[in-house]
Protein backbone atom coordinates (compact mmCIF):
# COMPACT_ATOMS: atom_id res chain seq x y z
CA UNK A 1 0.00 0.00 0.00
CA UNK A 2 2.82 2.37 0.86
CA UNK A 3 4.43 1.60 -2.44
CA UNK A 4 1.20 2.30 -4.30
CA UNK A 5 0.98 5.72 -2.64
CA UNK A 6 4.63 6.37 -3.32
CA UNK A 7 4.26 5.55 -7.00
CA UNK A 8 1.15 7.75 -7.27
CA UNK A 9 3.01 10.68 -5.72
CA UNK A 10 5.87 10.23 -8.17
CA UNK A 11 3.40 9.98 -11.04
CA UNK A 12 1.63 13.16 -9.93
CA UNK A 13 4.93 14.99 -9.59
CA UNK A 14 6.08 13.97 -13.05
CA UNK A 15 2.70 14.90 -14.56
CA UNK A 16 2.93 18.32 -12.93
CA UNK A 17 6.38 18.84 -14.39
CA UNK A 18 5.18 17.74 -17.83
CA UNK A 19 2.31 20.20 -17.68
CA UNK A 20 4.83 22.99 -17.25
CA UNK A 21 6.72 22.15 -20.44
CA UNK A 22 6.94 25.08 -22.82
CA UNK A 23 8.47 25.47 -26.24
CA UNK A 24 9.46 29.14 -26.10
CA UNK A 25 12.26 31.09 -27.67
CA UNK A 26 13.28 34.63 -26.76
CA UNK A 27 13.09 35.54 -30.44
CA UNK A 28 9.43 34.51 -30.72
CA UNK A 29 8.40 35.49 -27.19
CA UNK A 30 9.76 39.04 -27.34
CA UNK A 31 9.58 40.03 -31.02
CA UNK A 32 9.39 43.78 -30.40
CA UNK A 33 12.62 43.78 -28.41
CA UNK A 34 14.51 42.86 -31.57
CA UNK A 35 12.79 45.47 -33.69
CA UNK A 36 12.72 48.05 -30.90
CA UNK A 37 16.44 47.90 -30.25
CA UNK A 38 17.51 51.54 -30.27
CA UNK A 39 20.69 51.62 -32.30
CA UNK A 40 20.46 55.26 -33.35
CA UNK A 41 20.51 57.23 -30.13
CA UNK A 42 22.84 55.30 -27.83
CA UNK A 43 24.05 57.30 -24.82
CA UNK A 44 26.34 56.44 -21.93
CA UNK A 45 23.85 57.40 -19.24
CA UNK A 46 20.68 55.91 -20.72
CA UNK A 47 22.02 52.70 -22.30
CA UNK A 48 25.54 51.78 -21.20
CA UNK A 49 25.26 52.55 -17.46
CA UNK A 50 22.06 50.47 -16.93
CA UNK A 51 23.54 47.59 -18.95
CA UNK A 52 26.70 47.59 -16.83
CA UNK A 53 24.71 47.94 -13.61
CA UNK A 54 22.44 45.01 -14.45
CA UNK A 55 25.09 42.63 -15.70
CA UNK A 56 28.61 43.61 -14.62
CA UNK A 57 28.79 45.63 -11.40
CA UNK A 58 28.16 42.74 -9.01
CA UNK A 59 31.82 41.86 -9.64
CA UNK A 60 33.23 44.89 -11.46
CA UNK A 61 32.17 47.75 -9.15
CA UNK A 62 34.92 49.86 -7.59
CA UNK A 63 34.45 48.01 -4.31
CA UNK A 64 34.32 44.46 -5.68
CA UNK A 65 36.72 44.61 -8.63
CA UNK A 66 39.90 43.82 -6.73
CA UNK A 67 38.33 40.79 -5.04
CA UNK A 68 36.09 39.24 -7.65
CA UNK A 69 36.49 41.26 -10.83
CA UNK A 70 40.15 40.68 -11.72
CA UNK A 71 40.73 44.40 -10.94
CA UNK A 72 38.73 45.46 -13.98
CA UNK A 73 36.50 48.37 -12.88
CA UNK A 74 33.38 49.28 -14.85
CA UNK A 75 31.67 51.76 -12.55
CA UNK A 76 33.11 55.12 -13.62
CA UNK A 77 33.13 56.58 -17.11
CA UNK A 78 36.96 56.74 -17.33
CA UNK A 79 37.34 53.08 -16.33
CA UNK A 80 34.72 51.92 -18.84
CA UNK A 81 36.55 53.87 -21.55
CA UNK A 82 39.89 52.25 -20.66
CA UNK A 83 38.45 48.73 -20.70
CA UNK A 84 36.09 49.16 -23.65
CA UNK A 85 37.82 46.79 -26.09
CA UNK A 86 38.22 44.11 -23.41
CA UNK A 87 34.53 44.39 -22.62
CA UNK A 88 33.62 44.19 -26.32
CA UNK A 89 35.52 40.91 -26.73
CA UNK A 90 34.37 39.43 -23.43
CA UNK A 91 30.65 39.99 -23.99
CA UNK A 92 30.94 38.53 -27.49
CA UNK A 93 32.81 35.54 -26.05
CA UNK A 94 35.80 36.02 -28.34
CA UNK A 95 39.48 36.71 -27.73
CA UNK A 96 41.67 35.52 -24.88
CA UNK A 97 39.54 37.03 -22.12
CA UNK A 98 37.14 35.12 -19.95
CA UNK A 99 33.66 35.16 -21.54
CA UNK A 100 31.31 37.52 -19.74
CA UNK A 101 28.95 37.69 -17.93
CA UNK A 102 30.62 34.99 -15.86
CA UNK A 103 28.45 31.95 -15.15
CA UNK A 104 25.70 33.29 -17.34
CA UNK A 105 24.47 33.29 -20.88
CA UNK A 106 25.45 35.87 -23.45
CA UNK A 107 23.87 39.32 -23.22
CA UNK A 108 21.08 39.99 -25.69
CA UNK A 109 22.27 40.95 -29.15
CA UNK A 110 20.66 44.37 -28.66
CA UNK A 111 22.83 45.18 -25.62
CA UNK A 112 25.97 43.94 -27.37
CA UNK A 113 25.33 46.02 -30.47
CA UNK A 114 24.49 49.10 -28.38
CA UNK A 115 27.86 48.81 -26.63
CA UNK A 116 29.57 48.46 -30.03
CA UNK A 117 27.78 51.55 -31.31
CA UNK A 118 28.77 53.58 -28.25
CA UNK A 119 32.44 52.59 -28.80
CA UNK A 120 32.25 53.28 -32.55
CA UNK A 121 30.80 56.74 -31.90
CA UNK A 122 33.77 57.75 -29.80
CA UNK A 123 32.78 56.66 -26.28
CA UNK A 124 31.14 59.97 -25.39
CA UNK A 125 30.17 60.68 -21.79
CA UNK A 126 26.64 61.72 -22.60
Amino acid sequence: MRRLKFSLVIFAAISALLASCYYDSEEALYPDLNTNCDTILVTFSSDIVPMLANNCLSCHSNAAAAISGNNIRLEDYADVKTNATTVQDAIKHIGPNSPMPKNGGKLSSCLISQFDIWVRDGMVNN
Partner: protein
Amino acid sequence: MRKISLIVLISILPFALFSQNDLLDILNKDSIPGTVYTTATFKSTRIMNGHSIERMHEGVLDFRISHRFGTLNMGPYEFFGLDQSSTHLSLEYGFLDWFMAGIGRGAYEKTFDGFLKFSPVRQSSGTREMPVSVSFMTSASLRSLKWSDPERMNYFSSRLAYVAQVLIGRKMSEGLSLQIMPSYVHRNLVTTELDPNDLYSIGAGGRIKLTKRISINAEYYYLVNPKKYMSQETFDPLSLGFDIETGGHVFQLIFTNSVAMIEKGFIGETTGDWKKGQIHFGFNISRVFTLKAPRRSADDRGVKGR
Protein backbone atom coordinates in the same frame (compact mmCIF):
# COMPACT_ATOMS: atom_id res chain seq x y z
CA MET B 1 4.76 13.16 -32.05
CA ARG B 2 7.59 13.54 -29.57
CA LYS B 3 5.15 14.90 -27.04
CA ILE B 4 2.79 11.94 -27.52
CA SER B 5 5.55 9.40 -27.10
CA LEU B 6 6.69 11.20 -23.97
CA ILE B 7 3.17 11.18 -22.54
CA VAL B 8 2.87 7.45 -23.26
CA LEU B 9 6.20 6.88 -21.58
CA ILE B 10 5.21 8.87 -18.50
CA SER B 11 1.82 7.17 -18.22
CA ILE B 12 3.32 3.68 -18.27
CA LEU B 13 5.94 4.67 -15.73
CA PRO B 14 3.87 3.86 -12.61
CA PHE B 15 3.17 0.36 -13.95
CA ALA B 16 6.83 -0.04 -14.63
CA LEU B 17 7.39 1.00 -11.02
CA PHE B 18 4.97 -1.65 -9.75
CA SER B 19 6.74 -4.36 -11.63
CA GLN B 20 10.01 -2.99 -10.32
CA ASN B 21 8.64 -3.31 -6.82
CA ASP B 22 8.02 -7.00 -7.36
CA LEU B 23 11.49 -7.41 -8.72
CA LEU B 24 12.91 -5.42 -5.84
CA ASP B 25 11.06 -7.50 -3.29
CA ILE B 26 12.94 -10.40 -4.72
CA LEU B 27 16.16 -8.44 -4.63
CA ASN B 28 15.66 -7.18 -1.10
CA LYS B 29 14.88 -10.62 0.27
CA ASP B 30 17.98 -12.00 -1.39
CA SER B 31 15.79 -15.06 -1.84
CA ILE B 32 17.66 -16.45 -4.80
CA PRO B 33 20.42 -18.56 -3.37
CA GLY B 34 23.61 -18.53 -5.34
CA THR B 35 23.06 -15.12 -6.92
CA VAL B 36 25.97 -12.74 -6.70
CA TYR B 37 25.16 -9.07 -7.27
CA THR B 38 27.85 -6.94 -8.82
CA THR B 39 28.86 -4.05 -6.60
CA ALA B 40 31.05 -0.98 -7.11
CA THR B 41 30.63 -0.71 -10.87
CA PHE B 42 31.74 2.88 -10.30
CA LYS B 43 33.22 4.43 -7.18
CA SER B 44 30.75 7.30 -7.08
CA THR B 45 27.29 8.33 -8.26
CA ARG B 46 28.96 10.37 -11.01
CA ILE B 47 31.34 9.12 -13.69
CA MET B 48 32.70 12.63 -14.24
CA ASN B 49 30.06 15.31 -14.83
CA GLY B 50 27.16 12.95 -15.45
CA HIS B 51 25.48 10.25 -13.41
CA SER B 52 26.66 6.66 -13.14
CA ILE B 53 24.36 3.69 -12.46
CA GLU B 54 25.45 3.79 -8.81
CA ARG B 55 23.20 5.20 -6.11
CA MET B 56 23.47 5.80 -2.39
CA HIS B 57 22.39 2.88 -0.21
CA GLU B 58 19.39 3.29 2.05
CA GLY B 59 20.06 5.77 4.81
CA VAL B 60 23.30 7.13 3.37
CA LEU B 61 23.73 10.85 2.74
CA ASP B 62 26.23 12.10 0.20
CA PHE B 63 27.53 15.66 0.46
CA ARG B 64 29.18 16.66 -2.81
CA ILE B 65 31.39 19.69 -3.38
CA SER B 66 32.43 20.30 -6.96
CA HIS B 67 34.55 22.97 -8.60
CA ARG B 68 35.37 23.80 -12.20
CA PHE B 69 38.07 26.38 -12.78
CA GLY B 70 38.74 28.65 -15.76
CA THR B 71 40.30 27.30 -18.94
CA LEU B 72 43.89 26.05 -19.15
CA ASN B 73 44.63 28.33 -22.12
CA MET B 74 44.21 31.47 -19.98
CA GLY B 75 47.90 31.20 -19.21
CA PRO B 76 50.07 31.86 -16.16
CA TYR B 77 48.59 35.28 -15.26
CA GLU B 78 45.27 33.57 -14.46
CA PHE B 79 47.22 30.59 -13.08
CA PHE B 80 45.83 28.45 -15.91
CA GLY B 81 42.28 29.19 -14.88
CA LEU B 82 42.61 28.44 -11.20
CA ASP B 83 41.90 32.07 -10.27
CA GLN B 84 38.35 31.63 -11.47
CA SER B 85 36.08 29.00 -10.11
CA SER B 86 32.54 27.82 -10.47
CA THR B 87 31.05 25.69 -7.73
CA HIS B 88 28.27 23.15 -7.30
CA LEU B 89 27.13 21.91 -3.90
CA SER B 90 24.64 19.12 -3.40
CA LEU B 91 23.07 16.88 -0.79
CA GLU B 92 21.99 13.47 -2.04
CA TYR B 93 20.25 10.80 0.00
CA GLY B 94 19.42 7.14 -0.51
CA PHE B 95 15.81 6.76 0.61
CA LEU B 96 15.75 3.09 -0.41
CA ASP B 97 18.44 0.86 -1.78
CA TRP B 98 16.99 1.40 -5.25
CA PHE B 99 15.83 5.01 -4.95
CA MET B 100 17.82 8.16 -4.25
CA ALA B 101 17.14 11.86 -4.56
CA GLY B 102 19.30 14.94 -4.41
CA ILE B 103 19.18 18.70 -4.38
CA GLY B 104 21.93 21.07 -5.42
CA ARG B 105 22.94 24.59 -6.23
CA GLY B 106 25.46 25.53 -8.92
CA ALA B 107 27.15 28.83 -9.68
CA TYR B 108 26.61 28.27 -13.40
CA GLU B 109 23.58 30.50 -14.18
CA LYS B 110 22.92 30.43 -10.41
CA THR B 111 20.98 27.21 -10.86
CA PHE B 112 19.04 25.20 -8.28
CA ASP B 113 18.52 21.58 -9.25
CA GLY B 114 16.95 18.39 -7.99
CA PHE B 115 17.01 14.82 -9.23
CA LEU B 116 15.49 11.39 -8.65
CA LYS B 117 17.30 8.20 -9.50
CA PHE B 118 15.76 4.71 -9.62
CA SER B 119 17.83 1.58 -9.97
CA PRO B 120 15.50 -1.31 -10.82
CA VAL B 121 17.96 -3.70 -12.45
CA ARG B 122 21.24 -4.85 -10.97
CA GLN B 123 23.92 -6.81 -12.73
CA SER B 124 24.22 -10.29 -11.23
CA SER B 125 25.61 -13.72 -11.88
CA GLY B 126 24.94 -17.20 -10.54
CA THR B 127 21.36 -18.44 -10.32
CA ARG B 128 20.00 -15.15 -11.66
CA GLU B 129 22.04 -13.94 -14.59
CA MET B 130 21.68 -10.25 -15.44
CA PRO B 131 24.24 -8.80 -17.82
CA VAL B 132 23.72 -5.10 -17.04
CA SER B 133 22.64 -2.67 -14.32
CA VAL B 134 20.01 -0.12 -15.32
CA SER B 135 19.13 3.15 -13.57
CA PHE B 136 16.72 5.92 -14.52
CA MET B 137 17.59 9.51 -13.70
CA THR B 138 15.24 12.45 -13.98
CA SER B 139 15.98 16.00 -12.91
CA ALA B 140 14.63 19.52 -13.00
CA SER B 141 16.63 22.72 -12.74
CA LEU B 142 15.75 26.31 -12.00
CA ARG B 143 18.00 29.03 -13.32
CA SER B 144 17.85 31.93 -10.88
CA LEU B 145 20.15 34.30 -12.75
CA LYS B 146 18.65 37.80 -13.05
CA TRP B 147 17.15 38.44 -16.46
CA SER B 148 19.45 40.51 -18.65
CA ASP B 149 16.36 42.54 -19.53
CA PRO B 150 14.18 42.92 -16.41
CA GLU B 151 11.78 45.26 -18.25
CA ARG B 152 10.22 42.67 -20.54
CA MET B 153 7.54 40.20 -19.38
CA ASN B 154 9.64 37.39 -17.92
CA TYR B 155 7.94 34.10 -17.07
CA PHE B 156 8.83 31.74 -14.23
CA SER B 157 8.51 28.77 -16.60
CA SER B 158 11.34 30.21 -18.69
CA ARG B 159 13.73 29.42 -15.84
CA LEU B 160 13.02 25.69 -15.87
CA ALA B 161 14.67 22.80 -17.71
CA TYR B 162 14.14 19.06 -17.38
CA VAL B 163 16.31 16.02 -17.98
CA ALA B 164 15.53 12.31 -18.35
CA GLN B 165 18.25 9.69 -18.66
CA VAL B 166 18.50 5.93 -18.92
CA LEU B 167 21.80 4.67 -17.55
CA ILE B 168 22.89 1.22 -18.67
CA GLY B 169 26.14 0.00 -17.18
CA ARG B 170 28.14 -3.17 -17.04
CA LYS B 171 31.16 -4.09 -14.97
CA MET B 172 33.04 -6.01 -17.64
CA SER B 173 35.73 -7.17 -15.26
CA GLU B 174 37.23 -6.11 -11.94
CA GLY B 175 39.21 -3.42 -13.75
CA LEU B 176 36.84 -2.20 -16.47
CA SER B 177 33.30 -0.77 -16.28
CA LEU B 178 31.39 0.71 -19.20
CA GLN B 179 28.16 2.65 -19.42
CA ILE B 180 25.90 4.17 -22.07
CA MET B 181 23.31 6.81 -21.29
CA PRO B 182 20.64 7.94 -23.77
CA SER B 183 19.57 11.37 -22.54
CA TYR B 184 16.80 13.87 -23.16
CA VAL B 185 16.93 17.53 -22.13
CA HIS B 186 14.01 19.93 -22.38
CA ARG B 187 14.57 23.67 -22.05
CA ASN B 188 11.49 25.86 -21.71
CA LEU B 189 13.18 28.93 -23.12
CA VAL B 190 15.92 29.13 -25.74
CA THR B 191 17.44 32.16 -27.44
CA THR B 192 16.37 31.89 -31.06
CA GLU B 193 13.74 29.97 -33.02
CA LEU B 194 16.47 27.76 -34.47
CA ASP B 195 17.73 26.68 -31.05
CA PRO B 196 16.07 23.35 -30.17
CA ASN B 197 14.01 23.21 -26.96
CA ASP B 198 14.45 19.44 -26.94
CA LEU B 199 17.96 18.05 -26.95
CA TYR B 200 18.74 14.39 -27.56
CA SER B 201 22.07 12.98 -26.61
CA ILE B 202 23.80 9.63 -26.26
CA GLY B 203 26.50 9.45 -23.67
CA ALA B 204 29.19 6.86 -23.14
CA GLY B 205 31.51 6.53 -20.20
CA GLY B 206 33.74 4.14 -18.40
CA ARG B 207 36.50 3.58 -15.95
CA ILE B 208 39.67 1.57 -15.81
CA LYS B 209 40.95 0.70 -12.37
CA LEU B 210 44.64 1.40 -11.96
CA THR B 211 45.00 0.36 -8.33
CA LYS B 212 42.57 -0.59 -5.58
CA ARG B 213 41.96 3.08 -4.79
CA ILE B 214 42.58 4.88 -8.07
CA SER B 215 40.79 4.62 -11.38
CA ILE B 216 40.95 6.55 -14.63
CA ASN B 217 37.57 7.70 -15.97
CA ALA B 218 36.27 9.08 -19.24
CA GLU B 219 32.89 10.38 -20.30
CA TYR B 220 31.53 11.73 -23.58
CA TYR B 221 28.09 12.90 -24.64
CA TYR B 222 27.24 13.00 -28.32
CA LEU B 223 24.61 15.64 -29.10
CA VAL B 224 22.24 14.29 -31.76
CA ASN B 225 20.72 17.68 -32.67
CA PRO B 226 22.65 19.48 -35.41
CA LYS B 227 24.89 22.10 -33.82
CA LYS B 228 25.36 24.47 -36.74
CA TYR B 229 22.04 26.31 -36.27
CA MET B 230 22.49 26.99 -32.58
CA SER B 231 22.93 30.63 -31.63
CA GLN B 232 25.86 29.77 -29.37
CA GLU B 233 28.74 27.65 -30.61
CA THR B 234 28.30 24.33 -28.81
CA PHE B 235 30.60 21.34 -28.40
CA ASP B 236 30.10 17.79 -27.22
CA PRO B 237 31.26 17.51 -23.61
CA LEU B 238 34.30 15.30 -23.15
CA SER B 239 35.70 14.70 -19.68
CA LEU B 240 38.75 12.76 -18.56
CA GLY B 241 39.95 12.27 -15.03
CA PHE B 242 40.79 10.20 -12.00
CA ASP B 243 38.83 8.80 -9.08
CA ILE B 244 40.76 8.61 -5.83
CA GLU B 245 39.05 6.80 -2.99
CA THR B 246 40.05 7.43 0.61
CA GLY B 247 37.75 5.90 3.21
CA GLY B 248 34.53 7.89 3.30
CA HIS B 249 35.66 10.29 0.55
CA VAL B 250 35.88 9.98 -3.19
CA PHE B 251 37.95 12.64 -4.93
CA GLN B 252 37.44 13.03 -8.64
CA LEU B 253 39.98 15.11 -10.55
CA ILE B 254 38.62 16.21 -13.90
CA PHE B 255 39.65 17.80 -17.16
CA THR B 256 36.57 18.83 -19.13
CA ASN B 257 35.41 21.38 -21.69
CA SER B 258 32.24 22.11 -19.71
CA VAL B 259 31.78 24.51 -16.79
CA ALA B 260 28.30 23.31 -15.89
CA MET B 261 28.03 20.27 -13.66
CA ILE B 262 24.41 19.30 -14.34
CA GLU B 263 23.05 17.58 -17.45
CA LYS B 264 21.05 20.59 -18.62
CA GLY B 265 24.23 22.65 -18.72
CA PHE B 266 26.86 20.28 -20.05
CA ILE B 267 24.77 18.52 -22.71
CA GLY B 268 23.49 21.60 -24.50
CA GLU B 269 25.62 24.53 -23.35
CA THR B 270 29.23 23.35 -23.44
CA THR B 271 31.21 26.13 -25.07
CA GLY B 272 34.76 24.91 -24.56
CA ASP B 273 36.76 23.46 -27.45
CA TRP B 274 39.36 20.84 -26.53
CA LYS B 275 41.35 21.64 -29.68
CA LYS B 276 41.75 25.28 -28.62
CA GLY B 277 42.77 24.37 -25.08
CA GLN B 278 39.49 25.58 -23.58
CA ILE B 279 39.73 22.87 -20.97
CA HIS B 280 38.60 23.34 -17.40
CA PHE B 281 40.39 21.63 -14.55
CA GLY B 282 38.08 20.71 -11.71
CA PHE B 283 37.28 18.32 -8.93
CA ASN B 284 34.36 16.62 -7.22
CA ILE B 285 34.55 15.69 -3.57
CA SER B 286 32.04 13.19 -2.27
CA ARG B 287 31.70 12.68 1.49
CA VAL B 288 29.21 10.09 2.68
CA PHE B 289 27.46 9.99 6.05
CA THR B 290 25.57 6.91 7.19
CA LEU B 291 22.46 8.33 8.89
CA LYS B 292 20.62 5.05 9.28
CA ALA B 293 22.08 1.63 10.10
CA PRO B 294 22.11 -0.47 6.94
CA ARG B 295 19.23 -2.92 6.79
CA ARG B 296 21.29 -5.64 5.25
CA SER B 297 23.48 -5.99 8.32
CA ALA B 298 20.32 -6.24 10.41
CA ASP B 299 19.31 -9.17 8.24
CA ASP B 300 22.72 -10.69 8.82
CA ARG B 301 22.18 -10.52 12.56
CA GLY B 302 18.95 -12.46 12.14
CA VAL B 303 16.75 -9.43 12.85
CA LYS B 304 13.74 -9.35 10.57
CA GLY B 305 14.05 -6.34 8.28
CA ARG B 306 11.09 -3.92 8.07
